[in-house]
């Protein structure tokens, strides 16, 4: 006898039901995400590229010194030389909005998980699920709900990129020295004072590491998300694959790598500086 649990049917049915019955809510979520992303995108594209580059290089110099600033200058020049300026800015806008959403949801979740064992026991497996479920599996239903474009791209990216910041925030809070927490309580901290004055400051380094990881994950996912029409550098990667265009593939891939290195080093520097100071 072989009875198969109709897991797949249940989920498919659930998605269908949601699609038919909850359109209003999805539309609203969708338009919020769409508006945020396009606002960031327009802002970036409206800025003259030289100004954008100057600000970027300035930040690079401030955080890491002139060597890294030189590297950024060279990278930004190469990106414009390869003709990827607009795509890169679109990708950057997608990453920024996905990261903002991930952090606004992820940091409070991480704090909650860090302070309550029960919350942690629910949140952890959910995060495992979000991180290991192959992206295409939720990319498609997301596209069904929100239509093709950047909204399902951003949502899929949030699902994939949020776990690290939740995990590391929680870890950071759990790692605070036990007697430091006791000291906070012994001097009369309320739970929120304890969080703001004792736990979060000590968890800062871990939290920044989480933010850094989230940004990196967002970057890798944003490329995949171009399959549902999110746009950006991913489009070029995708079309190079479909046309077997090795040259374009390398160039667009290089653009992604350069962007990744720049974002990584800059965001990483915030965590390190905070930890030392």
């Amino acid at each position, binding site marked *: 006898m072989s009875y198969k649990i109709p897991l797949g049917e249940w989920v498919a049915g659930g998605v269908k039901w949601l699609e038919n019955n909850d359109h209003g809510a999805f539309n609203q979520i969708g338009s919020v995400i769409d508006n945020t992303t396009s606002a960031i995108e327009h802002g970036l594209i409206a800025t003259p590229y030289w100004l954008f580059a100057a600000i970027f290089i300035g930040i690079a110099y401030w955080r890491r010194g002139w060597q890294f600033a030189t590297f950024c200058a060279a990278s930004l020049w190469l990106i414009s030389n390869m003709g990827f300026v607009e795509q890169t800015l679109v990708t950057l806008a997608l990453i920024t909005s996905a990261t903002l959403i991930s952090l606004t949801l992820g940091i409070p979740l991480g704090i909650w998980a860090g302070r309550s064992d029960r919350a942690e026991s629910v949140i952890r497996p959910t995060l495992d699920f979000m991180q290991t479920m192959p992206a295409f599996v939720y990319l498609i239903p997301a596209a069904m709900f929100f239509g093709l474009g950047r909204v399902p791209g951003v949502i899929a990216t949030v699902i994939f990129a949020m776990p690290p910041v939740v995990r590391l925030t929680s870890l950071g809070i759990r790692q605070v020295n036990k*007697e430091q927490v006791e000291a906070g309580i*012994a*001097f009369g901290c309320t739970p929120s004072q304890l969080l703001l004055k004792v736990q979060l400051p000590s968890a*800062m380094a871990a939290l920044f590491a989480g933010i850094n990881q989230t940004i990196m994950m967002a970057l890798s996912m944003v490329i995949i998300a171009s399959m549902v029409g999110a746009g950006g550098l991913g489009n070029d990667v995708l079309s190079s694959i479909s046309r077997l265009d090795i040259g374009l593939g390398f160039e667009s891939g290089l653009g992604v790598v350069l962007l990744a290195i720049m974002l990584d080093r800059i965001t990483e520097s915030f965590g390190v500086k905070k930890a030392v*100071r």
Partner: protein
Amino acid sequence: MNTATTEPEAKVVVKDLHKVFGNKPDVAMQMLRDGKHKDEILKQTGQVVGVLDASFQINKGEIFVIMGLSGSGKSTLIRLLNRLIEPTAGAIIVDGEDVATMSKEKLLNLRRKDMSMVFQSFALLPHRTVVENAAFGLEIAGIDLKERERRAMEVLEQVGLNTFAKHLPAQLSGGMQQRVGLARALTVNPSLMLMDEAFSALDPLRRTEMQDVLIKLQQEQKRTIVFVSHDLDEALRIGNRICIMEGGRVVQVGTSDDILQRPADEYVKAFFTGVDTNKYLTAKDVAQKEQVTIFDHPDEPAAGFSAALERMRMYDRVYAFVLDEQHKVLGIVSVESLMACMNDPNKKLRDALLPGKEAIPSSMPLNEVLRKVVEYPCPLPVVDEHGEYIGAITKTVLLRKLCKEKTA
């Protein structure tokens, strides 16, 4: 004068206090009432009995030391006093009010205004400067920045750290960090201070230094201090009364004399003597590194007489030990013998050694050591099996040790 006969005023009264760690405290409490032992309860139910039926009183203005072996429940007991750990049963009455049952707001208020704590690992906040750490309690209580920094600076001055106000804790030595810990506890001007092994992480020298700081502060303003320690010497030095714990129980409370002269049971007795010490004590156990030692460098032209004399003068010693570079004891010199050789350019340090003074092997039993020590006027060096210097025995040190054994 009849002040001596008046009952001391109670600051804290602890009554039938229990703490059970685990998810079934009621079951454990019932088993305790049925007379079951805590080991049995742990085996049957997995509940850990941390503190068991504790009842005692802490007087106003005294230093009350809690002692006991590791795991005996000292940290648990002191944390029950400010409810860092929730009691399972019993009462903790501080200034007439029961901490165990008081409301959240009252408890917060008590912790902010009248009770503070010093921790073994210092527990300073690493991202805050010394003065910000010291002002922490006032900040939590909502005192404005200027006022709280002013008061924190006052207290930092009391503990001798005002010049380090802008440093971060990581930039200070352990002893200085704990002064900050002490300052943080003092700034809220509490009438009750809880100190859990506050000085245990410090080396012996810093530890005595901090004890002195505490005693001095106590003279300036009397507070009630509950002090957990596992160091007998510390307890005897600073404690007005001592409370001995064993396996979660309070087995005896009294002045050090009380406890030394009338130990409640074998456990308390053993605690103060170690196990059958007299039989097992050897020279090694009483040797102390308080004597001046001089290294002999035979290859160097200068004999080093003046340096040796200067150091002996500095430490106020009449005798010093001469060691070679492998720390082997060559012999003993005195101020006199050094002076005698000093003006002869052909003489070396070795020529100033006193005749017939031999080192004591570290394994020599105490009674034999006693015979040797009375024979000679000077302290005698103790060496290990390779002849290396490990310390010295003086008459005073030996007598004090033997007296301690006797009274216990």
